């Protein structure tokens, strides 16, 4: 096919608005849990009374809590009692089963959906910790379940849960002329993947806007890398950077008003900041090396980025308005792809040693920086923090295929998310979702 015909075909693909691939299916992702946490808190999630239509809310809550690695959930089968509200709870039963916590609930129809009530109990203290009701349409019952998981997680651990979130990722299949690429969005448990962009040319580097409604990404559909910003719900999008050379690594600022990106229009890749209102560009770094992968600090005043100005890629930080850059990674011969936690204290990176690439964590919350390894390798890349800083998504290679993993920030538990076919990579964890 001639280059022009290929481009026309790609444009046809992109004329299709974003559509849900298969909302009813379990999704293209399977989740297997690898490793475990001996200090996980035992919690019994009792099947909720009443029905919530097709969605099994307590099933989702049980899976969420187990997935976090912080809880060990009691199997649904063989529960001796099934209370659905506080008055039906007999604490000795659960104490005998060695449970620390108990979650019960029930639902009743309400309008075109359901009203779901839930209560969380501390078994040892024989005390109710939480009692709430959520009302939502039948189609939003998965969201309700994730919101319940978030509330339980936060009440017990004191840290917000990140279950009601989404992930964006890139898939590809085929090689050469038959290669196909897609940018996908799914719930962070893998449910309900939908296609945001479909293309015969490469797609890269999805970045969430802080409002969770837009994605910035890199697309080669125009014959060179270019940066787009797309509204996920409507599919409408804008090309914001298509200069000569590289247009890459877009990253939204915490206030959503600016976009950091990599441009090589000046002769070599440097970091720029674009004001999204005026489209005015400020050049932040100016060095003959490769400066890329800018990531905002939570206060919006600085950028952390990858640079090989010292010979090989390492992590640097620089004020967002420009100025001198300071190196911050001093372990390992190769450090790239920084992801900064919401409090700025932890940075996850792809760290290389010889041919082995692993996800490593730089913890700057204590006096001196501390490194820990989060993944086994050997070709792990693209780390992305959950908005609560408790877990990191990353991409791994298994044979010819790419798969995603989520690992807890303490490295104790990992889950594998496998796409049914093809290659999955470049995950990006969304901000908290808002009602």
């Amino acid at each position, binding site marked *: 096919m001639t*280059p022009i015909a290929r481009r026309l075909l790609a444009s046809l693909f992109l004329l299709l608005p974003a559509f849900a691939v298969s909302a009813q299916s379990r999704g293209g992702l399977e989740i297997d849990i690898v490793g475990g946490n001996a200090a996980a808190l035992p919690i019994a999630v009792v099947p909720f009374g009443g029905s919530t239509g097709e969605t099994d809310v307590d099933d989702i809550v049980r899976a969420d809590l187990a997935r976090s690695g912080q809880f060990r959930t009691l199997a649904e089968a063989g529960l001796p009692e099934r209370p659905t509200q506080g008055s039906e709870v007999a604490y000795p039963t659960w104490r005998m089963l060695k449970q620390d916590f108990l979650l019960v609930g029930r639902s009743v129809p309400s309008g075109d959906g359901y009203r779901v009530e839930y209560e969380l109990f501390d078994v040892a203290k024989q005390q109710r910790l939480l009692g709430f009701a959520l009302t939502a349409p039948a189609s939003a019952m998965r969201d309700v379940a994730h919101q319940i998981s978030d509330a339980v997680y936060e009440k017990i651990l004191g840290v917000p849960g990140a279950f009601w979130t989404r992930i964006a990722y890139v898939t590809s299949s085929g*090689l*050469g002329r038959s*290669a196909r690429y897609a940018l996908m969005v799914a719930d962070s448990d893998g449910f309900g993947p939908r296609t945001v962009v479909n293309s015969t040319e*490469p797609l*890269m*580097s999805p970045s969430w806007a802080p409002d969770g409604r837009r994605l910035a990404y890199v697309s*080669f559909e125009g*014959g*060179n*890398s270019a940066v787009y910003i797309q509204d996920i719900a409507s599919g409408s999008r804008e090309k914001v950077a298509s200069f*000569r*050379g*590289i247009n*890459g*690594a877009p990253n939204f600022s915490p206030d959503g008003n600016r976009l950091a990106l*990599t441009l*090589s229009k000046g002769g*070599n*890749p440097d970091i720029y900041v674009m004001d999204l209102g005026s489209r005015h560009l400020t050049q932040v770094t100016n060095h003959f090396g*490769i400066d*890329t*992968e800018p990531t905002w600090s939570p206060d919006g005043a600085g950028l952390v980025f*990858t640079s*090989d100005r010292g010979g*090989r*890629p390492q992590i640097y930080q620089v004020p967002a308005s420009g100025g001198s850059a300071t190196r911050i990674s001093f372990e390992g011969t*190769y450090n*790239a*792809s920084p992801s900064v936690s919401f409090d700025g204290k932890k940075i996850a990176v*792809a760290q*290389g040693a010889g*041919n082995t*690439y692993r996800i490593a964590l730089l913890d700057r919350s204590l006096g001196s920086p501390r490194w820990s390894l989060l993944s086994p390798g050997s*070709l792990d*890349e*693209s780390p992305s923090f959950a908005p609560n800083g408790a877990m990191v998504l990353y991409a791994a*290679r298994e*044979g*010819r295929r790419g798969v995603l993993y989520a690992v807890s920030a303490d490295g104790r538990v990992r889950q594998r998310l496998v796409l049914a076919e093809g*290659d999955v*990579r*470049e995950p990006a964890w969304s901000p908290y979702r808002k009602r």
Partner: protein
Amino acid sequence: MNASASRIARTLLLAALASAIAVGCSKKVKETPPTDSGPSTGTTTTPVDDGGATRPGAYGPNDLDTDACLRNRVVYFDLDQDALKPEFQAAMACHAKYLRDRPTARLRLEGNADERGSREYNLGLGERRGNAVSSALQANGGSASQQTVVSYGEERPVCNEGGESCWSQNRRVELVYSAK
């Protein structure tokens, strides 16, 4: 045409032929990039018409498919390197000559990297390799205005089974003529 005009015309024609032969001979030089012959012959050679008859010793569009040197369209690189290896110098010379002989030709230099490491950093590596090929073409007399460097990083592999044998095939710059 009168006698003196035809004499002038003949002289000009001979001069054109001589410089064409000089250009033709320079394509045989493999070791040293003939930096002198490029610009100076450019000023004395008669203009080429698009797709029309080519001058003796000059490339025509069909040579892209038939000429042994021009058919080399991929330059390979060592790990983390953008230095051009000696075995590709001949290809640089003939492609530079093609650009000179064909002012309408447009060449995309598509830079690539193997899969290891950061994807965005590999965009930068691919561009460095494309730039290295562009510099070599310019050193051989090819015009920068006919060249565009595009980096695909690791996004367009030719193989995906991993290992050095596959990685070495992906560390490459592809010469793609978007216009002949």
